[in-house]
C-alpha cells in the first residue's frame, strides 16, 4: 500500500538537561502550557497537514508516552490504513537493536518505511514547540527538485547549540556544521528533514555503523556527495526547549507574548491534546487571579499571579502562586508561597511551605522530602 509521505517521529530522547522533569519520562511527554505535552505539537502538525502514516520511534522511558499516544485518536490519526505505528527497539536475528543516534534509529526501522514505499520521508523530532504545515515544506522540496530539505529558523542567542548552515540565494545549502564553536551564520537546523526516500536509503546504507546521526553524519555526507540539499526557512514561533530555563520561558511566552504561538487562536490550526475528562476548573474564592492560565479540574482558593496551572491542581486558602508552572494533580496546602518554580506532576506541598526562588527551580516530591529533612 503506497503512501506519498511517511513521517518518522523521533521520541526516544531523554532530554537530560531538563533535570527531574524527565526523570521518569521521555522528553516528548513533558507537560507544556497547562494541558499539552510536547509531542502534541508534532502530532497535531501532522494531523493538520493531512499526513497520517507515521512511525513513532521510542527508546527512553516509553511507557508514559505510549499510553498517552495510544492509537492516535486524539490527533485524528487512528485511520484505517497507516496511522501511528509505535516502533520500539527490538531483538532480531542480527542481535539486539539499540539505537545509537537519530539516523541509526531510522535505519533500524527502514522496513517500516518500505512497507509504504513513499516518495518522501519526513524526519521529525518529537519534542519541539511550533505550528507548521509540513506540506509547504514538502512542496518546496518538490519544486526545488531537492534530494534533502532541511527546515531552518533564525536563532538569536547562542547559535552554537544548534546545527548551523549557510544558504545561497536559491536556498541551496553551502555548508553545514553541527554545534560549531564559531557559527558562520545565525540560520539553524530545526532537525526537521524531508528526504527523497531513495536518497535516504542510499545514504543510510553507506556504512551505518559509522553514521549514527543526521546532523553529525548524514547531512555532511549528502553535501559531500554533492546532492541537492536545500534549506526551508520557517518564520513562525519555534522553540527547542532543551533546558529548564528554555522550557520555562516558552511556557511564559504563552502568558506574556500570546501573539507568538497563538495558542488561543486554535480554530484553523488546532493543537490537539488528550482530554482528561474533568469538569471546568472552579475558583471558589480568590483575591487575585492575574495574567494566568488555568486548566480543567482545578480547585482554587488562593492567589494565582502570572502562572500556569495544569489540570486537577488544588490550591488551598491564602496560598500565593507567582511566576510558576504547576503540572497536573499537584496539591498545594494553605498559606504556601510558591515563586518561580516548576512543580512536577503529583507533588504534594504541605501547608505553610515557602518556595521562593530567584532562578527557575524544578520541584518534585523528592525535592520536597529533602526540604522536609532540612526542616527536621
Amino acid at each position, binding site marked *: 500500500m503506497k503512501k506519498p509521505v511517511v513521517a518518522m517521529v523521533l521520541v526516544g530522547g531523554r532530554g537530560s538537561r531538563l533535570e527531574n522533569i524527565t526523570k521518569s519520562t521521555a522528553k516528548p511527554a513533558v507537560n507544556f502550557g497547562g494541558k499539552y505535552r510536547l509531542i502534541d505539537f508534532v502530532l497535531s502538525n501532522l494531523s493538520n497537514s493531512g499526513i497520517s502514516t507515521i512511525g513513532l520511534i521510542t527508546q527512553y522511558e516509553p511507557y508514559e508516552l505510549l499510553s498517552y499516544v495510544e492509537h492516535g485518536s486524539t490527533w485524528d490519526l487512528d485511520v484505517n490504513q497507516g496511522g501511528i505505528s509505535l516502533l520500539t527497539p527490538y531483538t532480531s536475528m542480527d542481535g539486539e537493536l539499540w539505537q545509537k543516534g537519530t539516523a541509526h534509529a531510522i535505519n533500524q526501522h527502514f522496513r517500516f518505511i518500505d512497507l509504504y514505499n513513499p516518495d518522501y520521508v519526513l524526519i521529525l523530532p518529537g519534542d519541539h514547540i511550533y505550528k507548521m504545515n509540513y506540506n509547504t515544506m514538502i512542496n518546496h522540496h518538490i519544486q526545488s527538485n531537492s534530494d534533502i530539505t532541511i527546515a531552518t529558523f533564525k536563532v538569536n542567542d547562542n547559535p552554537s547549540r544548534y546545527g548551523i548552515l549557510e544558504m545561497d540565494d536559491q536556498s541551496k545549502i553551502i555548508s553545514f556544521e553541527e554545534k560549531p564553536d564559531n557559527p558562520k551564520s545565525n540560520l539553524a537546523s530545526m532537525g526537521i528533514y524531508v528526504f527523497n526516500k531513495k536518497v535516504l536509503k542510499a545514504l543510510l546504507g553507506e556504512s551505518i555503523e559509522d553514521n549514527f546521526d543526521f546532523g553529525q553524519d548524514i547531512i555532511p555526507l549528502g553535501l559531500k556527495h554533492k546532492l541537492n540539499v536545500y534549506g526551508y526557512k520557517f518564520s513562525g514561533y519555534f522553540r527547542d526547549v532543551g533546558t529548564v530555563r528554555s522550557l520555562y520561558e516558552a511556557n511564559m511566552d504563552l502568558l506574556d507574548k500570546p501573539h507568538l504561538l497563538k495558542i488561543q487562536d486554535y480554530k484553523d490550526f488546532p493543537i490537539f491534546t488528550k482530554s482528561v475528562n474533568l*469538569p471546568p476548573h472552579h475558583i471558589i474564592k480568590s483575591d487575585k487571579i492575574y495574567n494566568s*492560565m488555568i486548566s480543567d479540574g482545578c480547585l482554587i482558593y488562593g492567589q494565582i499571579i502570572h502562572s500556569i496551572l495544569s489540570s486537577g491542581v488544588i490550591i488551598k486558602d491564602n496560598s500565593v502562586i507567582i511566576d510558576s508552572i504547576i503540572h497536573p494533580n499537584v496539591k498545594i496546602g494553605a498559606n504556601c508561597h510558591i515563586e518561580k518554580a516548576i512543580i512536577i506532576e503529583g507533588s504534594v506541598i504541605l501547608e505553610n511551605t515557602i518556595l521562593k526562588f530567584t532562578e527557575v527551580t524544578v520541584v518534585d516530591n523528592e525535592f520536597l522530602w529533602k526540604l522536609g529533612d532540612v526542616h527536621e
Partner: protein
Amino acid sequence: MNSNIFAIVDATFKDNLEQLTLHRMPGALPFAGKYRLIDFTLSNMRNSQITNVAIFPYGNYRSLQDHIGSGKKWDLDRRRDGLFILPPKNLYISPDEMITFQRMYEHIEFFKRSSQDYAIITSANIVWNIDFQDCLEEHLKNKADITEIMYKNIRLKTFLISKKLLIEYILVYDTQEYRTMLDLVERAPNLKIHIYKHQNYTRTITDTFNYLKSNLDMLKFDIGMKIFPPDRPIISKEKTAPPTKYLKNAIIENSMVSSGSIVDGTVINSVIARDVIIKKGATIKNSFIMSNCVIEEGSILNYVILDKQTIVKKNTHIEGVLNNPYVTQKEQIVSSFENLKVLLVASESYPFIKTGGLADVIGSLSRNLTKQGIDSTVILPLYKKIRETFFESLKYQFSRTIIYDKEKYKVRIYRYQYRKVKYYFIDSFDFFETENVYGYKNDPDRFAFFNKAVVDLLDDFESFDIVHCNDWHTSLIPILIDNSPHKGLKTLLTIHNIDYQGIGKNDIIKKLGITDFVLKDDNINFLEIGINRASKLSTVSPTYKDELKYEYYGKNLTYSLLNREREFYGILNGISSSFNPLTDKAIKTNYSSDNIELKLENKLYLQKKMSLKVDKDMFVIGMVTRIVEQKGFDLILNSFDELLENKNIQFILLGAGDKKYIQELEKLQERHKDQIKLNIGYDATNPNYIYSGADIFLMPSRFEPCGLGQMIALRYGTLPLVRRTGGLNDTVFKYDPITKKGNGFTFNNYDANEMKNTIQNAYNLFCENKEDWNKLIHRAMRSDNSLARSTQKYIEFYNVIIKN
C-alpha cells in the same frame, strides 16, 4: 463484566426551555461549561458497564448526533451492541410526556435483538451520577415487575423492567390503555412496583429556571463532588481549546470557567463555557454563559443564560431573575434596548374595542411593554363604536391621502395616550364607519386598506425598530413594507388563531400597488402572505406552535409554516394581575393561597346563585366559554348523561355562541334539571362567580392556541381539567398521584370517554383525598402566568429579531 441491562434513552419528551431548544433537543443542551445534558446519562451507562444503548430522538437531532457521534467516548463504539439512534418514523412527531410504547414499537427489532434481560428506560435531560447495577440488584431482590427510580419526591421518568415484560406491552400498544411507562406504574393492576430512591443530587432539566439553577448548583462544592467523582467520571466530547486565560483585570468569585475562555472582567457565581471572551469592565453574576460568547466592556449581566455565540455589546445591562432568567438566542447580538421602539398593529385592542381574546392581548401587551421600558405605539382602525365611546378623549393629529385601487381616500389620524402608550386611530369614512368590526363582504378590502394606510403613515412617525402585526387583518404589512421606502424594517407576525386567514380576491394585490408578488390563483390568503413575508413569526403558545406542524391543526398553512420553522416561535400569553381572588370585588369572599378554606364560601354562594343544591360535598364543574365546536362540546354532549348519573356532580356553564350546541345543551339541562345550570349570553352571570366557586374548570378543547380561562381558573384555585393541546398543555400540569405534583387534570385524546374517566378520577380524588386536593389548589394558585412574564418573552424576542 458487561451489564445485563440495555438502555433506552428517551429524548422525545416535551420541555419548557423556550428558544434554547428551538434548534436542539434538550439532551444536547450545554451544561456546566463543557458538558451536554446527555453526557450524564451516557456516562452513567458507561460507568454501569451498559453496552447496548438506544436513543429515541424527535425533531432536529443534528446537534445531539454531532455530539455523541459513534458513542466512542462512552465506550459504546463496539462490534457487539453499541449505540443506536432510532429516529421517529414521522419526523414531526410532537413531543409527549415521555416515550410511548408506540414509539418503541417502531423499532421493535432493537428490543427483540437485544441480548440483555433487563431494560432501563431513562431520559436525556437528567443531571446525576448513578450506578444502574444497584438499581438492578434492588429490582431483583424485591422481585419487582417494574422499578421506578426516583430522587426524593422527584420522578425522573426512569424505569427498570424486564425485557420480556416490556416487549409484551410494546406489542399491544394499539389495544391497551397504557401509552407510557408512567401509565403502567400509575394504573396497571397486578404489577409489583418498586421504588428505588437515588440518594445523591439529581435534577431533571425541564425549564429555564431549573436549567440555570442546576448549573449554578455545580458551584456548591459538595454537589460538584457528587456529580463529578473521579472514579465515576462524566465524559464529554473532547475539544481542543487551550486552558482558560486570565488577564490583568480579572476578578473571580466562586465560578467555573472552561477552556479557551479569556477573562479580563468580573465573574461572580457563574458558569462560563468554552471560548468565551469577557472583556475588561464587564460583570457577570449568577449566570450561565455558553460557548463562544463575547461580553464587551462595561456590560452587566445578572441571572442570564446566554446561548452560544451571543455577543453582548458595550455597556449593555441585562437583568433576569432566578426563576425567570433572561435567555438569549444562539448568535444573537444584544445591546442596550432602552430605546427599543415597537409598533403594534391590530384590528382590535382593549379597552377601545373587543370581540375576542386578541383585544386583551394587544391591550395588555402594549401597557406592559411600556412598563418594562419599551416605547410602544398601537395603531387601530377608528371603528364607529370607538368614535362613539371615546371621541372626546381623542386628539386630532393630521390628515393624509391614501391611494387604494388608484382612488384617493382621505384618512384622519387621531391620538390617545394611556399612561405612556401611544394609540393612534385611522379614521376612514369609506372603510371603518361600520356597526361591527368584522363580518362584511368587503372585509379583505377594508383591512388591506388599513394595512396600506399604516405603511404609508410610517413616514409620519418617528422610525420604529419593529412592527408587530397580529392575525390576518395586518398580515399584508410585511409585504407592503417590502414595497415601500421602509424596506428592511423588521416585522413580527403573531398568529392568534390559524382558523381566520382572510381570503380576498387577487386584485387586492394590484389595488395595493404591490409589484413583487406572483399570483397563483383567483384568491389571495392574507395570513399566508404574512407567514411568507414577515421577518419572524410567533404564535401564542409553544405547544400550539408545535401542533401547527400537523395538518390537523395547521390546515392549509402547514407547509408554509414548516418552511419557516426556524423563524417560528411560541410565546405564551399571560393574564393581568387584576385577576386576583384576594382583591376581586365581584366574588362573595376574598381569599388567597394562604386561606383556601374561604374559597368554599364562594362555592356555596355560586350554588345558591345558580339555584342548585347548596352542599359543600357536591362536585361543581364550571365552564366559561364561547359555545362552539372547538371548545369540545361534542365531548360534553356525548358523555354528560352518563357522568351525571352521579348525583353529586353539578355543572355550571356561562357562554354564548352556536345555536346548534345551545339547543342540545338545553336538552341536556332538561334531563338533569337539578344538576345543570346554563347561563347563555355573555352577561348572563358574572364569570368570576364560576372562577372562584367551581371545583373544576373544564376546557376539553379540540384545539386551543393559548386559552385564558384556564389561567384565570388557576389563579382562583379552581383546578383546570383540560385536554392536552396548545396553551392548555403549557399551563396545566397533570396531577401525579405518586409525587402529588401538578396543578390540574389532563387527558390526551379528543375522546368523550377519556374526558369522562378523567373527570371521574378528579371526582374520586376530591372525595377521598382532601389533603392532596388542597395541595393541588395551592400549587394552582402559585402558577405564574403573569403578563410581566409573557411581556419579557416578547421583549427578548424583539431583540432577537432586531439584532439579527
